[in-house]
C-alpha cells in the first residue's frame, strides 16, 4: 500500500529535477551567430504565427545552406513558443538571451511582449526588431536607441491608406462629406490609428465612424448591421485573428462592397481572407511588402531549402503574407549583421554592441533588395539616428479569391504628420522613465 504514493511523488519530483536541469544545459558553438526566434505556432493567433515563423526560419536556413552563413558565420536559430502570451514571451526572452554566443537581436512578435522586454533589452543591450507592432513612438530614435520599427508603423501605414482612398476618389478634396468607417478590434491595437484618422477627418471634412468590435470577434452581426445603415464610402478594417474573416464574411452577407474595405497591416494576411471564402473576393488591404512568391529568392529557397527537405513548415504557406513577413524580418536582421561584419571584421559572429551599431545606421537601398532576390518584396530601409522606421511605405493589395494581387506601387506616407506624433509620444515616455534622449546631429 505504501509504494504507489511514494513512487508517484518520487517520479514527479525526479521528472521536475531533470527538466530544470536541462534548462541550464546550453550548447554553445563559438563560431555561430545565435538567433532566438519567439514564435506563436499555437494559441488563438497561430494561423498568423505559423507562416511568420516558417518564413523566418527558412530564410536563415537559406543563408546557411546557400552561402554557408554570413561570410562563413553560420546562424543558429532557436525557436521558443510564446503562444502570444506575455509571460511566456518574457520567459522565452530570458531563457534564450544568454544561450549560444548570446542573443544580439530579438523579434518579440507581439506588442505586449515588446513592452515587457523593452526595459530588459535596454539593460542587456539587445536590439529589438519590431516589424509594424510594438511602440509606434520607437520610430523616434532618440529615446529608445535599441528598438526599431522597420519598415512601418500603424500611423504611417494609415496615412498611406488615406492617400489611396483620396486617389480613388479623385483627390483629397473629394473626401469632403464622405463617410468612412473604422471597424476595429476593441483593444489598444485597433484604436491606435484613430488619432491619425481623426486628424484627417478634421482636415479633409469626411465623417469618421468609429465602430468597436469586441475581441475575439466571433459574432459581429449587430456591428455590421449598423455599418450597413451608415452606408459608408470606405471601411477601414483593423481586426486581428478570427475577427478579420468574420468581419469580411459578415460584411459580405450585409452586402457591403469588399472593394471598398481596406484592411490595416494586420488585417492583410491570408488567414483574414481564406476562412471567409468567396466573401473575401475583392477585399483590399495595405501591407508593407510585396505579396506572392514571384521573386527570385523563392527560386533559391526552392533549391536550397524546400528541395533539400529543410523547410520549417509543411511548405504550404510559402508565398503567404505571414511567410513573406518572416522572410523580410530575417532579411533585415541578417543584413544588419552583414553590415556589422563589414565594419568590425568579417568571419566572426557579431557582438551586441556591433549589432546595435549596425541597426542604428541600417541602410538597405532598393538595389540591395534586388541583390538579395527580394526586390519588390522587401521595402528598402533607411535608418538614421532620429528615424528608426525608415520611410514607412506600404502598398495596397487585393484578394482575387486565390491570391493577393498587388494594386499599387509603394505609397508614400505623410511624414509631416507622423513624425511630430512620434516625437511627442517618445519624449513623454522618456520623461516618465527618466531617459535622457541622446543627441543626433
Amino acid at each position: 500500500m505504501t509504494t504507489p504514493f511514494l513512487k508517484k511523488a518520487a517520479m514527479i519530483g525526479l521528472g521536475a529535477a531533470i527538466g530544470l536541469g536541462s534548462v541550464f544545459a546550453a550548447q554553445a558553438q563559438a563560431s555561430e551567430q545565435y538567433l532566438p526566434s519567439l514564435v506563436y505556432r499555437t494559441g488563438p493567433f497561430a494561423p498568423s504565427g505559423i507562416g511568420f515563423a516558417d518564413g523566418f526560419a527558412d530564410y536563415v536556413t537559406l543563408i546557411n545552406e546557400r552561402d554557408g552563413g554570413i561570410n562563413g558565420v553560420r546562424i543558429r536559430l532557436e525557436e521558443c513558443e510564446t503562444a502570444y502570451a506575455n509571460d511566456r514571451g518574457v520567459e522565452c526572452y530570458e531563457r534564450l538571451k544568454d544561450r549560444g554566443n548570446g542573443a544580439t537581436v530579438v523579434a518579440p512578435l507581439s506588442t505586449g511582449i515588446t513592452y515587457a522586454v523593452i526595459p530588459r533589452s535596454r539593460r542587456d543591450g539587445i536590439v529589438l526588431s519590431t516589424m509594424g507592432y510594438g511602440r509606434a513612438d520607437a520610430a523616434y530614435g532618440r529615446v529608445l536607441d535599441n528598438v526599431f520599427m522597420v519598415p512601418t508603423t500603424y500611423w504611417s501605414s494609415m496615412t498611406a491608406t488615406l492617400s489611396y482612398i483620396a486617389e480613388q476618389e479623385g483627390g483629397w478634396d473629394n473626401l469632403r462629406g464622405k463617410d468612412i468607417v473604422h471597424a476595429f478590434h476593441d483593444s489598444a491595437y485597433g484604436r491606435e490609428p484613430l488619432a491619425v484618422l481623426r486628424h484627417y477627418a478634421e482636415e479633409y471634412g469626411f465623417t469618421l465612424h468609429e465602430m468597436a468590435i469586441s475581441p475575439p470577434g466571433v459574432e459581429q452581426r449587430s456591428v455590421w448591421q449598423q455599418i450597413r445603415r451608415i452606408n459608408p464610402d470606405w471601411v477601414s478594417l483593423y481586426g486581428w485573428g478570427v475577427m478579420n474573416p468574420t468581419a469580411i464574411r459578415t460584411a459580405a452577407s450585409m452586402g457591403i462592397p469588399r472593394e471598398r474595405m481596406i484592411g490595416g497591416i494586420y488585417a492583410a494576411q491570408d488567414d483574414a481572407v481564406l476562412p471567409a471564402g468567396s466573401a473575401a473576393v475583392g477585399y483590399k488591404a495595405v501591407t508593407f511588402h510585396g505579396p506572392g512568391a514571384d521573386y527570385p529568392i523563392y527560386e533559391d529557397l526552392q533549391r536550397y531549402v524546400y528541395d533539400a527537405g529543410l523547410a520549417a513548415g509543411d511548405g504550404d504557406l510559402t508565398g503567404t503574407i505571414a511567410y513573406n513577413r518572416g522572410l523580410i524580418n530575417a532579411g533585415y536582421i541578417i543584413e544588419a549583421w552583414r553590415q556589422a561584419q563589414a565594419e568590425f571584421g568579417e568571419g566572426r559572429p557579431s557582438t551586441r554592441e556591433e549589432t546595435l551599431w549596425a541597426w542604428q545606421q541600417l541602410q538597405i537601398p532598393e538595389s540591395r533588395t534586388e541583390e538579395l532576390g527580394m526586390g519588390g518584396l522587401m521595402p528598402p530601409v533607411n535608418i538614421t539616428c532620429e528615424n528608426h522606421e525608415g520611410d514607412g511605405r506600404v502598398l495596397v493589395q487585393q484578394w482575387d479569391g486565390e491570391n493577393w494581387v498587388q494594386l499599387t506601387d509603394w505609397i508614400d506616407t505623410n511624414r509631416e504628420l507622423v513624425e511630430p506624433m512620434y516625437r511627442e509620444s517618445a519624449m513623454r515616455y522618456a520623461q516618465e522613465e527618466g531617459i535622457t534622449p541622446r543627441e543626433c546631429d
Partner: protein
Amino acid sequence: MMFFFEVLIGGLMSGIMYALVALGFVLIFKASGVFNFAQAAMVLFAAMFIAGMHGDWGVPYWMAIPITILLMLGLAWIIERVVLRQLVNQEPIIMFMATIGIFFAIIGFAEIIWGSRSRTLDIGIPDQPLFIGDMLFQQYDIVTAIAVAVLVVLLLIFSQRTRMGRVLRAVADDHQAAQSVGIKLNTVWVVVWFVAGIVAVVAGIVWGGALGVQPVMVDVAFKALPVLLLGGLTSIPGAIIAGLIIGSGEALAEVYLGPIIGGGIDNWFAYIIAMAFMVWRPEGLFGEKIIERI
C-alpha cells in the same frame, strides 16, 4: 423600426448558434452532473477533422462527416475509459477540472494531427443575403435554424420517450443508486458523451462555416456559457430560449447601448443579463428548482 427588427432577427440567429454549443453542455450536465468545459474543444475537434480530411486528404464531406461522428464515439469511449471511470463519485469541482484537462488534451491532439492553421469548411450552405421586402435575411441563418430545430426535437424525443433517455435521467439523479439497480455507468457515459459529440459535430460545421476552422473557435464557449446559465444547466428547451434571449439582447444592446458607453460590449453584456436574471431566479429559466433542505 425596420432596422430594429433586422437587428432583433440577426440577434435571434446568433442566439441559435450560441444555443447549439450550450446544448452539448446541457446534455452532459444533465446526465452526469459534469460541467463539461471540454464541449467547446469537442466542437473544434469535430470541425478540424471534417475540414482537415476534406482539405488535406480530399475526402468528400458526405464521407468526412460520418467518419467524424464515428471519431466522436471513439472520443467518448476514450474519455470514459481514461477519465470518467477513474473519477467516479468525485466532487463536481474535480470533474470540472478534469474536463478542463480534457479540453487541453483534445485541442493538443487535434493540433498534433492537423496543426493550428486556419482552414475553410464549406459544405455548401448558401450564404447570400436574402431580401424579403426591405428586410435583410441570410440564407445561412435560415438553414442553421432549421438544423437546430430538428436536432432539438430529436434530442427531446430521445430524453423523454426512450428507455435510454430515462436511464440517463436516473443516472443524473444518483449515480450510485443507478449502479445498484444494475445500470452500467460506463455505457451510459459513453452514450451521453457520444450524443454531445454529435451535437458538437453539428456545431462544428455551423461555426466552422462561419469563422473558418481555427483554434480560436473554442472561444465560442464563452458565448455559450451565459446562455447555459440563463436557460438552467439541465434544460434543453431552456438552452434554446435562453440563446434567443441572449442573442437578441446582446445585439440590441450593442446597437443601442454600445455607442453610449463606448462600444464592444457584447462580451460581457450576456453575462450581466444572465447574472441579473439569476439573482432573481438562481436556477435559471428552466433549471430544476434547487430544493434547499436541512
